[in-house]
Structure formats: C-alpha cells, structure tokens
C-alpha cells in the first residue's frame, strides 16, 4: 500500500547552519571586513585599558591605568561636565526646537520657506566656524559685542564671557543645538494629519490648548527619536569645548581623552580607561535606543494630509520676528564675524590707525601650510565620498534586497559608528595602526585619515541608502530578473543608475562631514597631514586669530559651496525623520 510519504521530498533537514553559497560567502566577507573595521579599534581600547605599557611597547597587563585614571578627580569631572552640558543643552534646545518646528510647519508665519532655508544653512555650517565666530563676538576683552556694550552708558556693566559654562552652552545652541532638531522635526510636524487639530478645535479647544494636548503628544515618537539621538551625541562634542573650555581648564569627555593622549609621556592607557567607560554605556544604550526607535507605537502620518495652517492672528508678526532673530543669530552673526575677523589688523580693535587690512589674506593665499591643509582636506573628503558612496550602496543593497543570513549583524555593526564619539574611534585607530606592525607604516599618512573619515560616516550612508532602496521597491529589479538578467547585471544596469542620485547625495554628505571633522582625526594627523580644521585649531591655540579666520572661511566655503551646488541640483542634503 503506497503511503503518502511524497510530501516529504520538499523538506530538508533543519540545520542552523546556512546553506553555503555565493550569498553566504559575500556576507561572511562583509561582516568580517566591517566587523574588523568598526569593532577592532574599539576592542583595542577596552583591551588596552588593562595594559599599563604604552603604545608600541610590549603589553603589561594590570589595573594600573584604571586606578590612576579614576584617582585623578579631573577625569571624573570631565565625565560629569559632559553630562551637565548635555542636560542643560537639552533642556534649552528641545523645547525651543519643538516650538520653532511647530511655527515653521503648522502656522502662518511669514517667510516660512526662507527661514527653513536659514536653519538648513545653520545645520550645514561647520561647528568650528560658528563657535569661532561667536568666540570673536563674545571674547571677554576683545569681543565685538562686549566692546559695543562698554560704549553704551547704562549697559557698560555687562560683559559676556564666552569662556564659561554658559558660553559653551550658547555656542552649542548657536551651532547645531537647535538647527539639527528643527531639520528633523519640521517635516514630521508638517506631515501630521491636520484633522486631529481641527477635531480638537471643534471640540472646544483653543489653538494653544490644541498645541499642548494634541499636537505635541501626537508628535511624541518623533520627539523621542530626536531626544535619543541628542543623548548619544553628548559625549561626541569636541571642537566647541576645545576652543571654549580648555583655555580655562574645563574639560569634557572628548577633550580629556585628547589631553591624556597628548601628555608627555602620553597617558594613552588612562585615555583608554576613560574611553571604555562610555563605550560600555553606549553598548548597553544603543540596543535600547534602536528598540525604542523601531517600536512605532502610533503613526500620525496619514495618506491624506491637508496641512491646515494655524492662524496666529496678532501673534503672526511677533512670531516671525522671533524666528528672524534666531536665524540671524545662527547664520549671519558668526559668518560676518569670521569674515570681518580676517580683514581686521587686530580683531575687535576699531581704533587702530589701520583697522582693516588685506595682509592676512595675501599671506594666507601663499602660505604653504594653508595650501597643504586645503589639499589634504580635499583629498580626504573626496576619497571618503567616492569610496563611501560605492561601498555602502552595495552594503545597503544587500541589507535591503537580499535574504542572506547575518544581515541583522551587519546592520547592527553599521549602526554603531554614529554613537561612538569621533575621538574614541580616533584613539582606537591610533592603537590599531601604531600597535600593529602590519599597519604601522600607514601611520602619519593621509590614508589613515581617509579610513577615519569613512568610519565616521558609515551609519548615515547606510541608512540613507537603505531608505532609498526600500522606497524604490522591488519591481524594477524583478522585471530585470524576469527578463533574464542575473544578480550582478541587474545591479549594474538597473539598480546602479536608479541609485545614482542617492549615491551622489551620500557622496556629498560624506564630503561635507569629512571636510569639517576634527575629533576623529586629531590624534592621527601630523603637521603634514593636517586638514584645514586641525590647522585652524592650531592657529587659534597659537593666538593667530586673524589667520585662523581665513582658514575657517576656507572650510565654510568648501562645505557651503558643495551643499549649495547639490541643493541646486535638487538634492535634499540634510536629514529627514522617517
């Protein structure tokens, strides 16, 4: 009697090992490579915190570094300073960001488009430039604003000192503190279904009550995402505290690490110990953050949206003026200040026989150090952009379109670098390249800096490319496969051209961020491989503010220039809330 066993022919033995084929091989290579690239430097940091010998010496394991590090109060204080700044900044920036996004997206203020462009500019402007610009404005002795205050009779008692805790907070708010939040939240506010607010009005609530009880709570998922992203950046901030904190002995996490690494002899092991503390925190925090971001409890974005504009009535003009002032402070003041600084004989001194001069400019344009810095910056940014765009489009494609095993692991690895402070990756790479004989010849080269630059931009690149692949949908590629093309031909003939615009976007973003970064390369650069940002920091440290202005202007021109060109081609260079 024939038994019905035939149904079994389709099933295989269930094994937890994935089938060995081309896909698995690619994934193994990718995970191996990315894992090594991202995780190895970080592992080195943790390992070497238990090592009491310095780099390139044979290891001596012990707890010496940990003990010394945490016996010294300065190190604890730097951690606490970072947290303090983070908390105060969020308390100021988050409500302001929410309020301004609401004004831009849902009310009838004048010139909303123009102001959004202004906040976009503020987001693009390098932190270094804005901080430096405000430094020139609020320096206690030579700052332009302080000079002006002294000349006004009843205000002469006021003297702002940017070299203070509140000065640092101010610089953060002026740089990226609110503009990042606004870039993230405004589109989300705009997409909210207006009927919810209208239903509130019809139920009897005023516009203000509606804002508080309906609009903001409905926006909570977005606000949480923005808040969590900011929390992670607390330990990354570097340039602002370097310029404004170090001169009076105020250290934060990132500046302390660099300080330890630059001592004679370099206290790199203690730096590693300090680094490990936050690393352990982040490793625990990131999965939590991802879970919270992934779990979208309620969606307020509906297919049909009529962005009903809320009428502000008498508040329309005051609100417009308010935002105008904010944009003015964010964009105009620092840029004018930096430009002005490059033309003054001594910044802030208007009473000299010759107040304005071109001498710094003529010097700068033939200064080999500036020219070299420019060259280095261009090479690094360009290489990072090209490599990043190509390589991560492949990674993004594999993550979204294929069903190869291990994608979750690869995705997690790609998520990590955004949370790691640049200084930490720099420290890890320092160990990797100095401490390993194979890599040592690369130390002191531009190649190392390119590697550091690409590392920092991994998360953003993969996220953007993934989103684009998801949005494109399968059907175009499926049509290609049905027509007979294999994986690679489909990739190059169909996927690639469709991805071209996004890849250009990714390349532009990587170029922009690579050209202004400091924290991740400061430990790795030499005086020959300095980029413009590092050069500017050195110039400020040496007191040459006027020349530093010129270097900063070059950086601004590069970033703004590239961003504007991209924008004119219709590229939305920025970040979007998903």
């Amino acid at each position, binding site marked *: 009697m024939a038994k019905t066993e035939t149904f079994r022919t389709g099933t295989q033995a269930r094994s937890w090992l994935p089938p060995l084929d081309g896909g698995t091989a690619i994934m193994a290579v990718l995970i191996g490579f990315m894992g090594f690239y991202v995780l190895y430097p970080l592992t080195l940091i943790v390992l070497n915190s238990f090592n009491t010998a310095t780099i390139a010496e044979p290891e001596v394991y012990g707890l010496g570094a940990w003990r010394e590090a945490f016996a010294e109060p300065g190190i604890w204080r730097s951690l606490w300073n970072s947290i303090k700044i983070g908390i105060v900044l969020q308390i100021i920036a988050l409500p302001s960001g929410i309020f301004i996004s609401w004004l831009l997206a849902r009310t009838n203020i004048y010139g909303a488009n123009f102001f959004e462009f202004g906040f976009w500019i503020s987001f693009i402007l390098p932190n270094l430039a804005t901080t430096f610009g405000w430094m020139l404005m609020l320096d206690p002795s030579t700052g332009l604003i302080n000079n002006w205050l002294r000349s006004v009779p009843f205000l002469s008692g006021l003297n702002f000192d940017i070299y203070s805790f509140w000065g640092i907070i101010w610089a953060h708010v002026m740089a990226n503190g609110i503009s990042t939040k606004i870039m993230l939240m405004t589109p989300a506010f705009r997409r909210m*279904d207006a*009927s*919810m607010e*209208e*239903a*509130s*009005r*019809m*139920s*009897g*609530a*005023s516009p203000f*009550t509606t804002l508080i*009880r*309906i609009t903001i*709570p*409905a926006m*909570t998922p977005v606000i949480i995402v923005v808040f969590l992203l900011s929390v992670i950046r607390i330990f990354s901030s570097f340039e602002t505290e370097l310029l404004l904190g170090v001169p009076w002995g105020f250290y934060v996490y990132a500046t302390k690490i660099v300080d330890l690494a630059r001592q004679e002899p370099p206290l790199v092991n203690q730096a590693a110990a300090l680094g490990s503390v936050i690393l352990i925190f982040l490793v625990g925090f990131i999965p939590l953050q991802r879970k919270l971001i992934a779990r979208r*409890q*309620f*969606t*307020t974005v*509906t297919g*049909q949206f009529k962005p*009903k504009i809320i009428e502000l009535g008498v508040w329309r003009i005051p609100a417009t003026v308010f935002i105008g002032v904010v944009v003015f402070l964010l964009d105009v003041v620092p840029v004018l200040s930096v430009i002005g600084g490059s033309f003054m004989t001594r910044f802030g001194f208007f009473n000299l026989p010759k107040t304005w001069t071109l001498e710094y400019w003529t010097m700068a344009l033939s200064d080999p150090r500036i020219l070299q810095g420019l060259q280095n910056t261009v090479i690094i940014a360009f290489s990072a952009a090209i490599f990043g765009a190509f390589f991560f489009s492949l990674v993004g494609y594999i993550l979204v379109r294929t069903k190869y095993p291990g994608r979750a692991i690869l995705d997690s690895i790609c998520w990590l670098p955004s949370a790691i402070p640049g200084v930490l990756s720099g420290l890890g790479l320092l160990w990797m390249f100095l401490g390993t004989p194979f890599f040592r010849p690369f130390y002191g080269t531009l190649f190392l800096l390119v590697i550091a630059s690409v590392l920092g931009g991994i998360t953003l690149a993969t996220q953007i490319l993934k989103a684009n692949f998801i949005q494109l949908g399968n059907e175009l590629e499926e049509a290609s496969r049905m027509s007979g093309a294999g994986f690679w031909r489909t990739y190059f003939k169909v996927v690639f051209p469709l991805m071209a615009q996004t890849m250009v976007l990714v390349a532009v973003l990587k170029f922009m961020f690579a050209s202004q970064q400091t924290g991740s390369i400061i430990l790795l650069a030499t005086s020959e491989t300095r980029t413009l940002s590092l050069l500017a920091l050195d110039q400020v440290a040496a007191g040459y503010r006027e020349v530093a202005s010129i270097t900063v202007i070059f950086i601004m021109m590069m970033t703004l220039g590239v961003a504007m060109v991209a924008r004119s081609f219709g590229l939305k260079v920025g970040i979007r809330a998903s």
Partner: protein
Amino acid sequence: MSFLRIENLYKTFGQVAAVNRINLEIAEGEFFTLLGSSGCGKTTTLRMIGGLEKPDSGAIYLGDRCLVSPEKNLFIKPEKRDMGMVFQSYALWPHMTVFENVVYPLKLRGIKGRDAEKKVAEVLGLVGLAGLEERPAPALSGGQQQRVALARALVFSPKVLLLDEPLSNLDAQLREEMRRELKSLQQRVHITVIFVTHDQIEALSLSDRIAIMKFGVFEQVGTPEEVYFKPATPFVRDFLGKTFLLPGKVSGLSDQQVNVEVKGAATAQLVLPRSNVISLANGFLAVGQGVMVAIRPEQVNLSAGRQEGRTNVVEASVDTVLFLGDRYEYTVTLGSETRVLGSPVSQGLKSGDKVSLELKPEGMTLWSRENESAQ
C-alpha cells in the same frame, strides 16, 4: 426664524470660486445633505459652517446669532461654535484611549469626574460601543473608530452635527449598516445634521433634504423624492441614479399633454403630462421642437416580442445580455441609438430578439435638446 441660515456665501481659492454665493435655510432637527462630486464646494461649505475656513463674503447665522460675516468683521472661532464634527479620517487622537478621546470636549467645558464618566458611557452606549472606554484609539477597527468619532462629536450635546464623508472609508457592508444606524441615531437624538457626501445612495436614503452642488453653486435643493423624480437640471438628473434618454420631436400639444415622436422609431408615440416638462431653453413648447425624453430605467417595462400601435411603447432589438446576479442587463438598439436597461427576469432573450419597451407616462420627463451634450 430658520435654524441655520447661509446668505450669499462666497469663497475663492486663488482664482477659483469654490463656493459661489449660495443661499440656504436649514430647519431645526433636519438631516440636510450636501451632495456632489469632488471639487464642487460641499466640504468647503461645511468647513465654513464649522469655522475651519473663513468665507470671503456672505454670512452664516445660527438662530439669531451671526457666526461669520466678513462685512461686519465678525468671526466666531470654531471652538466657540458648539458644533460636533466627524471628519473623513475620523481624526481620533492616537495617544489617547477611547474614554480620553470622548471626554475631551467635556473637560474643556468644565464637566469632570462622575458626571463626565456618566455622559461618556451614555454616548458610547448610543453608538454601540459600550464598555470600550479603556481601549487605545489605534487599537480600534475602522467602524469602531468611526463610532468613537461620532460619540466624541455628540457627547457635549451640540445643536448641530457636521459630518464630512464619514462613511467613505468603510467597506460596503459596514457602510450600509452605519447608514441605518446613523439615521436611527439622528431621530433618537433630535439633532440637526449637515452631511457631506459624494455617494447618492447615502444622500437619498438618509436625508430630509438634499442640495446637489456643482462648481460652487446649488443645482437643486429638495427632498430626495423631489430631486430624484423631478430633477431641475440635466446634471441633477444624470447624477442621481440612471437615466434612460430618448431624443424626439414634439408632434402634438394640448393643455394636458404633450405628444412626442421618438427619433428613429417613427411608429413610437409618447404621451406625457404637460406638468412633466422641465427646463425648456426658451420656456416655450412648440410642435416640431426637438426634445429629450428622460425616464428612470426602473420605470421601463421590457417584454419580449412586438406590440404594434400602442402609445408609450417603443420597439427595440436586443444587442447583448449580461447576467449580474440580481438582474439581467440588456443593451438594446432603437433605430440608430443604443441604450442599456436592466430587468429582473430573464425572459429567455438573446441577441437579435425584438422587444417592446413600455414607458410609464408619469415617470417621463421632457427636456429641451439644446441643454444636452450629444447623445
């Protein structure tokens, strides 16, 4: 004094007049529907009544209270108009439970605690959702969300209920169910309802009166039977239900009747009451004038075979037959014209068969030819 009065209401969006000087009076307790296709201005009108849009000119009165008048610089804010509104997307607040959604208007009016709880329970019972207070709003089905939206709009006992296409997002069966419940609800609660829809079945079945809108003006305002059986314009006639149209010529006139000779079927004579003549271009009927006879298909009786010489019977031949489940659909040719008709019984007809179409005289209406697009 009418309950809700709209005077010369005018609203433009850019160059387009979305609402073009309409006048309306709605009685208390009336179920009034604004019917039309998208872009006709019905939703804009509703939103102006609610205060979510401002007219360019004109006025709206509730009783003796003026709600809005740009000429008098008067505008009562939506939150002060005390009208309940149900939106097409329901607009339930996703971060609140059913209870919190429904109690929101009460809290704003200072009703709290046990009183509020009682009212919420009452109105949820009214819409058939008793006991669902603690459910989070996103965890509801479409039909349930719609009922919660309704409950929220009714809980503070408003005088007017505004409904913006509330049934269009429901599937067909739920829509039918909700239609019946909505009607019964309105009668129980004795509330004035202004209902906006593009669905003529909803309009016909629910309303006390309907206003059919096109390009911002009212084509006709009347009871459902009026607008269906005695449409005032070709647009209204063709928008509601189906119409069976026959071109013809006036062949005889008397005080009581009009005789029409149907084009292409010279033996067919139609006789219809003079009172069924509608919208003549020059208001004047003459022998030899080209006219259009219109009749609702359900008032045409299709039977097999020929019937020579009877009035109000038109000969035709069957082109195609389609079986639609509850009826048969026949495409018939009369002379050079083709028409579609339904009939519940098969009659064994096939393509090529001759049939007789018997037109009920009271169901026929006469229209001038000039107003029609080429038939």
